[in-house]
């Protein structure tokens, strides 16, 4: 019993570390919008393949470009793509999941079957198929990933809406004549926010991985568009023997981004930060 009590009071380490790691990365990315130690694209033959340390914190690559600056910018590319993709997936997913979960019926069945079919396939594979059709590039990747994320958000939100629909506060609101739209987005949505936030963190996790994988496969962000971590990893593979820090920096940056989001989603999932319902209500529905 004593153990149980303690574990309840113990700080949510997953969430704390997740936030710390992600904040550091986000801070670095925000800074990179205004300032990087060196120009990420400036080549210098004299400073080719320098080891980490000194002026170049993570060394330089085979063109003499500063790797730390490139990692900063590359992480920014990856995160901005992830952000847009998750925004598309979460907003459409919430609306679709909310409508189907709240109203139920034949449409619900139909859309959920499609959802099941889509989510059964690995998203990277579907993304590759769509890239064949649309071509690669930053905008395309954002839309492809965004659309592919809709089903998973819709599924989570639908489940929550279907559960909340049965609760007394929703029934009360209905009796009082509140319009469905208001019930869904003003009454129910705040109550499922913790679940939705956790899903958003997982979404970021998947989006970073998907973007990095696609750039690594050469069908993501094109070389001329922007620096991307996946692409850096692909290009650096040939220089393992001369400058292993190239691949290490890019790979570690991807892993750290993913780790941050994974920890946040873990922390939010196991113990919600807050419960919007009052204590008495929670007891009634427990």
């Amino acid at each position, binding site marked *: 019993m004593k*153990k149980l009590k303690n*574990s309840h009071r113990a700080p949510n380490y997953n969430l704390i570390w997740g936030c710390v790691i992600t904040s550091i990365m986000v801070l670095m990315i925000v800074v990179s919008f205004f300032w990087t130690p060196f120009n990420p694209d400036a080549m210098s033959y004299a400073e080719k393949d320098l080891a980490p340390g000194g002026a170049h914190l993570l060394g330089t690559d085979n063109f003499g470009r500063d790797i730390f600056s490139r990692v900063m910018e590359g992480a920014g590319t990856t995160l901005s793509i992830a952000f847009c993709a998750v925004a598309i997936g979460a907003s459409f997913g919430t609306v679709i999941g909310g409508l189907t979960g709240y109203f139920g019926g034949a449409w619900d069945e139909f859309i959920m079957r499609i959802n099941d*079919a889509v989510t*059964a*396939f*690995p998203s*990277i*594979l579907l993304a*590759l*198929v769509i*890239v*064949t*059709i649309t071509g690669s590039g930053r905008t395309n990747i954002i839309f492809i990933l965004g659309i592919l994320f809709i089903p998973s958000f819709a599924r989570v939100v639908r489940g929550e809406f279907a559960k909340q629909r049965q609760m007394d506060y929703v029934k009360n609101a209905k009796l009082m004549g509140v319009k469905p739209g208001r019930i869904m987005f003003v009454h129910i949505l705040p109550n499922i926010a913790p679940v939705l936030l956790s899903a958003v963190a997982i979404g970021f996790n998947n989006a970073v*991985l998907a973007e*990095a*994988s696609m750039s*690594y*496969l*050469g*069908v993501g962000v094109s070389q001329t568009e922007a620096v991307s971590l996946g692409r850096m*990893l692909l290009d650096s*593979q040939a220089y*393992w*023997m001369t400058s*292993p820090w190239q*691949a290490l920096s890019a*790979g570690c940056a*991807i*892993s*750290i981004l*993913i*780790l941050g989001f*994974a*920890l946040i989603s*873990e922390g939010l999932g196991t113990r919600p930060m807050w419960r919007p319902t009052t204590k008495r209500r929670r007891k009634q529905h427990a």
Partner: protein
Amino acid sequence: MRYILKKIGIFVLTIFAISILVFLAFQIIPGDPTTRMLGTQATPEKIAALRAQLGLDRPVLVRYFDWLGNFLRGNYGESYSYNMPVHELLSGKLRITASLTLLSFLMVLLISFPLGILLARFAHSWFDRVMMVLNQIVMSIPSFFTGILFTYVFGLILKFFTPTNFVEYADDHAGFWAYLVFPALSIALPKAAMVIKLLRGSMVRELSEDYVRTAYSRGNSRWQVLKGHVMRNAMVPVVTFLAVTLVDIIAGSIIIEQVFNIPGMGRLLMTSINGRDLPVVQTIIMIIALVVITVNYIADISYKYIDPRIRFR
């Protein structure tokens, strides 16, 4: 029996629906393959002739049933860029990717089950805590980065294998499997970490149930309870996840084949995507779709045998 029949019915319908989707997806691709095939020699007459030769001038529905019929008979059409039948192109590569996938899946099972059970047994101990932190980190490293690290450490430094020097199965059986060990492990590690987490969580949850206390009170040892009582109940969510994992491994092998230079289906898929070799892409996607659906159905049906409480509706 009715349940099984119903399941098979849905199975066939799903495959039918997927085949229509795959076919249609490749119809809306902009850019006619004939222009690419003819290149600079393209004239309207030549394009029309080639379109007729490839059967591209017929109605969509006719082409669909034609394609489906051919697909079912194992005739996947001709590759645009290699000028050879797709099935010939695929035959050897399919085996390589299948071997890689199965080896990786086996590794996931061999790593995750002992560790997951062990961690559940010693849940909340310092060992468990350290391992779970490690687990979370392993989960966050993408397989292609693990692959690159393995290439460097085990390939270039320790010289366990020669990177990019793939060994064909026909040349050397043992060498073939040996070459696949590190690629398979790169895919398996993050997946195994996920299974460990799920299995441990699922078992820890089951361990707090009343039936566990009853089992102890009847004089069962800790391992007996874990093995005979808890495992079976804890397995249900894990089996679902294993199906997902197997499918993910197939997708992962596409990426890993690039890292280790393995001439499997994934490499063929990527070159075909870049070269817009549609018959090849279409066939590979259709094959993967078939595998995905089959794996999910096997998982679906296997619940019954694991947990008889799940009654069929």
